[in-house]
């Protein structure tokens, strides 16, 4: 079981979260050229080692998080909310 430390809810089992894949993908503008969309939707770095990835705490606060996790050891080194406005609201 991965244990993900949700900044809002605390440490939880990964089964409470929904995996959202590579967080380094920058989705282009809606009207960006075809190539940009193909790259974003289909191409993956898929690293063996450190990976920035997206998880939604779907059974909890429903925040989307950016998690830095090693895909070989599964060690998690960092978790933060996807939206930069969120940390300021954790009071």
């Amino acid at each position: 079981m991965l244990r993900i430390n949700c900044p809002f809810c605390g440490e939880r089992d990964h089964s409470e979260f929904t995996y959202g894949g590579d967080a380094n993908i920058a989705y282009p503008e809606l009207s960006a050229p075809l190539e940009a969309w193909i790259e974003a939707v289909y191409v993956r770095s898929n690293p063996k080692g450190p990976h920035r990835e997206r998880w939604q705490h779907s059974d909890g606060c429903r925040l989307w998080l950016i998690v830095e996790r090693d895909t070989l050891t599964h060690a998690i080194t960092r978790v933060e909310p996807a939206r930069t406005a969120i940390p300021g609201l954790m009071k």
Partner: protein
Amino acid sequence: MADRNSSLLHSKPAPALSHRHCAMLLQYHAWPDRYAEMAKNLAMHCELPAPPRPGKAACGARAALLRVHPQRLWLLADRGTAHDHPSIGADTGAMLDLSYARTIIHVEERIVSPLLSRFVAVDLRPQHFAVDDIALTPLHRVSVVLWRRADGIDVLVPRSFARSIWDVLAEAATRLN
């Protein structure tokens, strides 16, 4: 106005479980830069010294506030209507009536630990989950809000799942008895 028909109307009674009536559940969602102000106003309205922090509930004179999201507070009240509580403008955020969307199942303190540890991964022992602590977590695969009260735990369940959750808890509670 007609009576409300609870989602648990026809469920079988079970030891140490009960349906807790809640007249009003209002969701207040603020835009990030307006949250502090909204929270402060709601706390004042509820006659609370401060709005609840993440993972906390606070019971005020008029209503209780639950912090369920960085930008959200849930206001729970035993009686009254939405008109008794503040409304907020679109420049601040959005308010939504969820009074019918959740059913509250109350679990008596004496079986909280043995019963809920069957279903909930969060450590609910009192030293880790004190009165007015809340947790958003799945119970039997359904997202619920757990709220520690003085006399046990309130489980806020999406209405459509309430009967099913009641049944699975009731079966386990009966076995524990």
